[in-house]
């Protein structure tokens, strides 16, 4: 019961900011009166949303699956990497530079390659999301795992604990807040990966629909798809936030 007013209180400022942006948008449309194929007003976008609900919904569902699969797989790989690196010093010395170096490769530039290798289906989009989610999760979690209170490690040593058990019973629970901050980033990044994948080559998804609408000068439809994408990302971010609070 008490969660609902708490949620409302947290969402109220975001709602206000949203309304403010909406007002600014409408204000620009009224003041500058751009042609609708350059910048449609909020009303036109809502109309496009209502008129194409089934079309947009179908594409949104495709994107949602790509994002969810990418998020789960990317976070899973990232967390597993962090635990493995935290357990083994040689692995850290060998793998860390590779990880950091890999971040110098712009993920966007890989999208055409992934499409070439994995085809036009769902797979390259999921792979993009995995790639974009993997590093923030691995890096944040590893950071947390390497910052275990030395007092706990002393205690564990005096208790003749096994390293794997220290990891499971002390280091991982203590690093969950760090993992949570990685996951919150991941929730926002994953849709970016999926949409870029769709832009490069797809027949489904919100990114594909946006390109399609853009090509046909249906800017209102493009904005409607964008709006749904924003809502999808926000919902995901809130869901991951709630999950993280339960973890912590």
């Amino acid at each position: 019961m008490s969660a609902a007013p708490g949620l409302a209180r947290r969402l109220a400022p975001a709602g206000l900011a949203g309304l403010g942006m909406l007002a600014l948008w409408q204000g620009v449309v009224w003041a500058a009166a751009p042609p609708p194929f350059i910048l449609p007003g909020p009303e036109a976008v809502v109309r496009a949303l209502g008129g194409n609900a089934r079309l947009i919904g179908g594409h949104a569902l495709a994107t949602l699956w790509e994002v969810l699969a990418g998020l789960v797989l990317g976070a899973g790989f990232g967390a597993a990497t962090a635990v493995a690196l935290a357990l083994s010093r040689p692995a850290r010395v060998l793998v860390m530079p590779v990880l950091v170096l890999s971040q110098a490769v712009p993920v966007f530039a890989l999208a055409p390659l992934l499409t070439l290798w994995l085809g036009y289906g769902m797979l390259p989009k999921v792979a993009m999301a995995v790639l974009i989610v993997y590093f923030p999760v691995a890096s944040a979690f590893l950071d947390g795992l390497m910052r275990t209170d030395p007092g706990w490690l002393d205690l564990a040593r005096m208790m003749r604990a096994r390293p794997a058990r220290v990891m499971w019973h002390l280091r991982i629970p203590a690093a969950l807040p760090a993992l949570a901050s990685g996951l919150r980033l991941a929730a926002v990044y994953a849709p970016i990966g999926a949409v870029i994948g769709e832009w490069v080559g797809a027949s489904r998804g919100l990114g594909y629909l946006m390109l399609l609408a853009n090509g046909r000068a249906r800017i209102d439809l493009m904005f409607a798809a964008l709006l749904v994408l924003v809502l999808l990302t926000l919902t995901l971010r809130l869901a991951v936030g709630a999950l993280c609070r339960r973890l912590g």
Partner: protein
Amino acid sequence: MTAQGITLAGRERRVAAPGLTLEGRGVLEERALFGPLTLALPAGRWTCLLGPSGAGKSTLLRLIAGLSTAVRLEGTVRAEDSAPLAGRIAYMAQTDLLCPWLDVLGNVTLGARLRGERPDSARARALVDAVGLAGREAARPAALSGGQRQRVALARTLMEDCPVVLLDEPFSALDARTRAEMQALAARLLAGRTVLLVTHEPGEAVRLADRLLLVERGGLSDMPLPDAPPPRAPDDAGTLAAQGRLFRALLGEGAPA
């Protein structure tokens, strides 16, 4: 609670507690930091190391525990029964080191879980009872006061059931009254074990020590104690007089009165 505590203390006392000796020099970055010295912990007694911060008390404790320190020991730490020390030493630090995600019982049985053993929850409950926290078994550390958290840490230390117990200023963050209660509780529940207590508080040292050593400029000196056995009443004339002498010794010769 008292009856339970006494049976527990009685049961624990059957553990044969060996004396312990650290012998050697402490070396920091190739320079001698202390010693050569001999630190002997008499079997089944409380030895207190008293000294100002930075005197190296905790370093000595960590060397005995086998915990990592910047100081290297050129020498030995051994038990008088010549059996290896590993697994026979329990450790309690200044911070309670409780896991915030575990309840009281979970924290007390942490050692078993870290070793992959089945926790003896009946014994854990009895110990929680013995430290005066019956009924709070399911409480999280965040719901406990500082004194209660340190009681849980004491129960966790007792749960390890080790003949040697190292206490690194475990009561120094507590208020005066809670500290006095914890001292009495620890003295009762750890009776019969070989205990090393590191402290910077003369009153605490005089109350609890069977043997009291002042740590100064890399050496140890034995300090006299009242005849009464520990735990001594904090307001006893003998305790207070000894405490006064210790203050003097801590402040050094020619210190302002």
